[in-house]
């Protein structure tokens, strides 16, 4: 009698000591002739991410004079030159608070992330835009999203489902490597695939916990029920991740395995340390994306109250924005600008790293959409009209790049709304009050 070979039997067989190798055909089978789409006709997935820097810019040396393509790069954006063709710059968009106070270094980023100006510092009215997008496209990879903070501070995160569910960031390259490329990583290009029976057992334990749900939540009030349910949702996601690990991962042509980063990541927020940390984490993120470990990411270069400091100078970047006198000849705060330039250098590195990594006929960046922004326009006075925003990448050819867009005073939510549509979401509008919009930024759409 012929016995049926089920996955379970295969797994048990493995445990018996006889390794069972499940081989699958190589990558080219999955891609069409141009490497632009899966052979099934489905498009290659587009990745989405955010990049944040604190404390805005100095208009005089940041804002291009020219609108549209081939915009001029002023001093503070000079470092973007190698990547200018991949980037869009959005200026002159507004954050409208509808009478709510402008909470210093808080209102701006909250409004740009979730479309609603907050009434207090803990008021995160709806999930951040990356979470909305992650809910739509984050499945099917090990991590729904990866949060990274080059500040090294685990409290710096602008990715949230609510004020009580802020996604904690990974704060060093060492930790990022361990999380993504540690023992649980499965090389998608390994010719042999052996499902790990331990994973099946781990999954079974998670399933068991889920079964406690009904008994637990019936004893809880509404708010606590939501909270505990959120935990069960998280457990379900982890279970899904284990399920993925039991299957042969789809091959990833662009995936190469990184070296483990050196143990020492550097302490503190001195600009050189932050730049090193940002670079090391970016390099790993690029490979995490190329190896299909996640499709969504959030990177923080500096927080809104940026603590970035410069060796030998007594004030942090935040303090500098308030206390440094504008140079009478130059007409801007010189040290503040030094910090902004360092931020833009790191942004340039970030985009450049995605652009340099080949995937299919193009680069990883071609299949990515990054939304970058700050928390203020001019930090000295906390202005939130004209907060600089950028995008990088063409999202699989869905948006044009290399443009400078003048918002003409429109709500800044237009960009977040546009990005959601580009990423395949179909909200009828986004934002609340005066920040509500249903107008895409048509100039960048292909």
């Amino acid at each position, binding site marked *: 009698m012929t016995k049926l070979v089920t996955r379970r039997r295969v797994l*048990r067989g493995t*445990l018996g000591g006889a390794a069972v190798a499940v081989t699958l055909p190589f990558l080219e089978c999955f891609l069409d002739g141009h490497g632009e789409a899966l052979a099934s006709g489905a498009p290659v997935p587009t990745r989405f991410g955010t990049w944040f820097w604190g404390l805005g810019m100095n208009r005089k040396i940041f804002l291009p004079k020219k609108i549209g393509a081939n915009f001029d790069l002023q001093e503070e954006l000079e470092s973007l030159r190698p990547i200018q063709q991949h980037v869009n710059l959005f200026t002159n968009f507004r954050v409208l608070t509808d009478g709510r*106070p*402008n*909470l*210093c270094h808080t209102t701006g980023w909250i409004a740009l992330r979730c479309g609603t100006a907050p009434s207090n*510092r*803990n008021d995160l009215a709806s999930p951040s835009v990356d979470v909305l997008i992650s809910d739509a496209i984050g499945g099917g990879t090990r991590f729904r999203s990866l*949060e990274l903070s080059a500040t090294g*501070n*685990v*409290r710096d995160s602008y990715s949230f*489902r*609510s*004020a*009580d*569910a*802020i*996604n*904690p960031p990974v704060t060093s390259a060492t930790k990022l490597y361990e999380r993504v490329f540690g023992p649980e990583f499965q090389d998608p290009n390994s010719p042999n695939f052996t499902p790990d*029976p*331990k994973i099946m*057992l*781990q999954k*079974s*334990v*998670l399933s*068991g*916990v889920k*079964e*406690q749900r009904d008994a637990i939540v019936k*004893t*809880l*009030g*509404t*708010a*606590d029920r939501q*909270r*505990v349910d*959120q*935990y069960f949702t*998280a*457990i379900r*996601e*982890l279970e899904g991740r284990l399920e993925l690990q039991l299957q042969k991962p789809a091959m990833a042509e662009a995936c190469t395995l990184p070296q483990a980063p050196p143990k020492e990541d550097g*302490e503190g927020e001195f600009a050189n340390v932050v730049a090193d940390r940002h670079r090391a984490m970016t390099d790993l993120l690029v490979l995490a994306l190329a190896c299909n470990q996640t499709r969504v990411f959030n990177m923080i270069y500096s927080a809104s109250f940026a*603590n970035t*400091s410069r*060796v*030998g*100078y*007594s*004030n*942090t970047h935040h*303090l500098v924005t*308030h*206390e440094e*006198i504008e140079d009478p000849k130059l007409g801007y705060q010189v040290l503040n600008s030094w910090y902004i330039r360092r931020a833009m250098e790191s942004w340039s590195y970030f985009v450049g790293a995605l652009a340099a990594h080949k995937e299919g006929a193009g680069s990883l960046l071609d299949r990515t959409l990054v939304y970058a922004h700050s928390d203020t326009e001019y930090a000295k*006075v*906390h202005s939130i009209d004209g907060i600089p925003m950028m995008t990088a990448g063409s999202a699989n050819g869905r948006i044009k790049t290399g443009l400078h867009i003048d918002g003409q005073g429109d709500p800044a939510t237009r960009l977040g709304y546009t990005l959601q549509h580009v990423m395949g979401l179909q909200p009828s509008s986004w934002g609340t009050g005066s920040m509500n919009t249903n107008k895409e930024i048509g100039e960048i759409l292909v």
Partner: protein
Amino acid sequence: MNKKLLYSGLGAAVVLAAAGGALWLLGRNSEPPVKGGPPTARLISSEQYAHAISYVFGPDVKLPGSFPPVQRTNGLVALGTAQAEVTTSAAELYVQSARSIAAQATDPTRRDFLMNCAPAQPPQDACARNVLTRYGRLLFRRPLTDAELNEALGKVQETTRVSGDFYQGLASGLTSFLISPEFLFFIERTEPDPKSPHHVRLNPSSMATRLSLLLWDAPPDEDLLDAAEKGELYTKHGLERQVDRMLASTKLEQGVRSFLIDMLVFEKFDSMTKDPVIYPAFTDKVAVDSREQTLRTLVDHLVVRDLDYRDIFTTRRTFMTGDLGMVYRVPVDRPDIWTPYEFPADSGRAGVLTQVSFLALYSHPGRSSPTQRGRAMREVFLCQVVPTPPPDVDFSKFEAAATTATTARERLTAHRKNPACAGCHKIMDPIGLALEKFDGSGTGRQRENGLPIDTSGDLDNVAFTDAVGLGKAMHDDPAATKCLVSRVFDYARGYKASSGDNAWLTDLNAKFAKSGYRLPALLRDIATSRAFYAVSATAVSAPGVDRAPAAPPLRTASIQ
């Protein structure tokens, strides 16, 4: 242990009460009424998790790391835990941690001691049942239900069958407990109050957990669970016996430490930076030691010596290490270990405000900040709320002064000429300037930019001339002790007190004064009170949802 036993324990309590031995349940006349809030479901903190694992599996079990931070709410992280949610990233850490702990607990070096299943022969179900019943009860803080036990046993059997290793099976069973919301959330549950048919009371497990979190920042130990399950916490005598046992335990220091870390906002150490060029003596080790110095000082003062809380602002007694000695610029006999140390009377230092932890934490990386220090004094020690700065401050006057002024006082005086700034800076700066003879690293100094430093000022019209005088003014400020009382009470219950608690808090403040402002006495008064365990009959939603500042913001008018 099963439900039957639990219920028979409760039955015993009811019988006792009926016999007249627990009139306490009906209310002590001396205690003003409180409404009580809804039951809470606090998320376990990293510290509580560590304390639980250390107690259940032994202090040598290593934890892979800490969990994501919880939002500080209404002045305390402890109140944030009643609202915190678990993201997928956080859940991942809980799962990893659970697997690691379960693997360690069942590894060959510990299994015989912890499990005592050898040399039984397979299928070893009886032993697995014993192990799961024991550890399940400790981790869930109550006896397992039959369904829970069977579910965990199923995991043991499944893993044992597939892996061929009984201990891997046990590890799966333990992992399932460690990732259960029953362990990760302190879910409070109620039961009908037999003495008051229309009301509910916390069930024994929830009562024991509230108590244990307050005094030890840890889940209940077996003694407390035994007492709770027998219904003893519902009797005055039984409750007092447990409270006194717990107050006498060395774990009280651990509990008070956790409270102090929360009250003192010590998570700020995570993001503190000092410029190595400007403050070469201030190393990472100094940062760690300064935090520890303050905790040691306060635990020694408040718990070990059981002294007056107000004296934390004036005591010169502390502990020192060699690295700290470099910053304080004092000789240290044994630089390699913690040594008791007393600042000389003429050192200019007295009390917690003159310790490096406070001075450095509320400073910039390269210079002191009288404003930050003043604000912290108001918010941390007096429970007052300083409004946030307006967004559109005109800094021109301040900048003009900055080019010529050479001391912080002069710079800030210029700042206060701006009406938009003056209101709040009047609240913060005069007390902050009292500490100006300590630089941004906490090291003493007599001059700033060559000019003598004036440290005189007043705390709400109580004048002082220097930091020691400021400490005395804080010592005498009734807001300081009231602040502590309200913080401890909020910390104890996991939600912000409301106006309905005012009469009770007034009474508690009076008792605190009568005790000579002894923290253990305050903890005992709370832990043995009805108010601490009171739950409202009807409300079911989580309390304390409003995160707005609890105290009304200080208005300029009330200060002027």
